[in-house]
Every structure is written in C-alpha cells, then in structure tokens.
C-alpha cells in the first residue's frame, strides 16, 4: 500500500470510519513514514480551523417569511383535508317533519335499491328462470310393424 492509499486511511481514521482491523497497519506505516505523519497533523489542523468557524444565525427576515409561507401551506393542507372531512363534520338542521320525510325516503330508497339488486334471488324466488331440459330423440323406423287389432277397431 503506497502513501496515497495510507493517507486515504488516515482521512477515514480521523472520521472514525476506518475498519478497526486496518488500524494496526496504518499505525505501523505512520511509525516509519514522515510524509504521512505530516499529512495526519496537517489534516487535524485543517479540521480544527474549519470547526473554529461558528454557526451563522439566519436573518430575522427569514423567520417572518417562513411563518407567512408555512401558514399558507398549512391553510392549503387544512382546506384539502376539510374537503375530505366535509360529510363527517357538516351539521344539518331541519324540522322533525322534514327529518321524518327524509328518513322515510331514505328507507324506501334503500328498500327499492335492495329489491332491484336482489330480485333475482332472495326476494322473488318464484321468478327464478325455470330450468328446461330439451331432449330430442332421433326418429326410429320400425321394420315389420303391424297395427295392434284393438287399435284398428277403435279407428273403425
């Protein structure tokens, strides 16, 4: 393994992403290679310098912008949801007579619907189409046929 490959392992080691079985090989190489030791120290120095940079605060204007926009998204989502929930949440007010009429209509409607759906089976068993068996027998010619005497008498 050359220095370039060893330095890639150093990078992974610094990130705690190096397979532990490669630790030994890496440290053996570091003990003999000045170049890679220098890379190790420099990488740590760069990391330290990068992390010294503090997190930046987002501008206040962004907060209000997000608040407004997220409210719009939220209201869009609510109106979408309300469309689905309309039947469940809608309350209808009517007089008792009207309510009874609506109920009666609903019952009649459902009965008619069920009659229509089930008329062939449960409600009108007599209307079931009768089963017919059609049997046609072939004509048979009987050779040596003589009418029976008492049938002849009847004819006379």
């Amino acid at each position, binding site marked *: 393994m050359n220095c370039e490959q060893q*330095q*890639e392992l150093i*990078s*992974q080691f610094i*990130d705690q*992403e190096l397979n532990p079985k490669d630790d030994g090989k890496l440290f053996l190489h570091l003990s003999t290679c000045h170049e890679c030791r*220098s*890379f190790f*120290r*420099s*990488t740590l*120095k*760069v*990391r330290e*310098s*990068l*992390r*010294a*940079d503090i*997190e*930046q*605060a*987002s*501008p206040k*204007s*962004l*907060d209000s*912008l*997000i608040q407004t*926009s*997220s*409210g719009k*998204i*939220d209201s869009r*989502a609510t109106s979408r*949801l309300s469309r689905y929930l309309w039947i469940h949440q809608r309350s209808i007010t009517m007089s008792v007579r009207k309510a009874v009429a609506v109920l009666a209509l609903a019952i009649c409607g459902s009965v008619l619907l069920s009659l229509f759906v089930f008329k062939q089976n449960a409600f009108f068993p007599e209307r079931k189409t009768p089963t017919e068996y059609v049997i046609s027998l072939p004509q048979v010619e009987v050779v040596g046929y003589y009418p029976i005497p008492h049938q002849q008498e009847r004819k006379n």
Partner: protein
Amino acid sequence: MSCEGDPKRMLTEIELVRQLQQGDRKAFGDLYELYRNKVYTYCTRMLADGEAAGDVTHETFLKAQSRIEQLHDSGSFKSWLFAIAHHEVLMDFRRRRTNIELSHAEGIWDNETPLDMAVSNEISEIVQRMLQKLKPEYRAVLLLREFEQLSYTQIAAVTGTTESSVKSRIFKARKALVEKLKPYFQQRGEI
C-alpha cells in the same frame, strides 16, 4: 452542536417529526428553530452569498413542510432536511449557471487559489477562504462531515452518491487543502 448524539433531544426531534406528520403546525416551528441556523450556515458556506442562502433556506423549509409525509424514518430528519437543502443549493447553482457539469468536472479547485491570495493571518479565515474555492461537490461533503458531523452513509444519502465516492471526495478535498496550506503551516512551525 449536533443533536444526533443526544438521545433525549433525538427523541424530542422524532416526536416533533411525528407531530408534524399528524398536522401539528407548532411542531414545524420547533423543528425550524432547531435547524434554521444549521441549514442557513450550510447554504451560506456552499453559495458564499447570504441573500441567496436565505432564499434557499426558505425554500428548503417550505419543501420539508409540504413533503413531510414522504419521510418514513422520523429519526433521519436531519439527513433528509440536508438532502433537500443540498438539492436546492445545486438548483441555485444551475439557475446561476455557475457550475452546471458538477459531476463531470475534473480537479478539486473551482479556480486556482495560490496561498498568497489569502490576506489574513488568521488560519481559520484562510481555511474558510480555501474552502470556498473548492468545487461544490468536494465542498459539500467536507461541510457535511466537519460541521454537521454526518456519517459517510448519511452524506451519501444527502448528496445522492455512494459511500465510496464520499470517502474519496472527503480525502481529496482534505489533501487539496493540506497541500495548499502546508507551506503556511511550515512557515509558522505548526507541523
């Protein structure tokens, strides 16, 4: 500080994500509070433009809110949010046509940056300036690793690349920075 190492805070974050998925608007506010500076800082470091970073951060949070149902693992909210931010940053690059062929570009540096361009003696400031000169795909992985302390797997998920590509890019970015800064470190006797 990253909240990933703190189990108590992680639990809160998972709860907040679940509440947001159930339509609790307050949970969005709490998640925004938790991540607004992180996302804004990432965008600023990627774009080197505060105003554009603000716009991208805005867009990131709006997309996160509207697509929260698509997040199946509540525990990976941070990676998911940064993936949206990263995508928005790339979209901004494309809009400004500064770097369209991101993945096909050769080399590490966006422009050649001699050390003497650095005007400050502060090492951290020099490193920051160098970081800005790295190509976006190298800058992104290094930022996510050093500032957000995401694992290679998480960075791969954020940037839409493979873990081996992340390993390689982080190494190349570090090596490029070290090579540029080596004379400076030697001059100051720091290595």
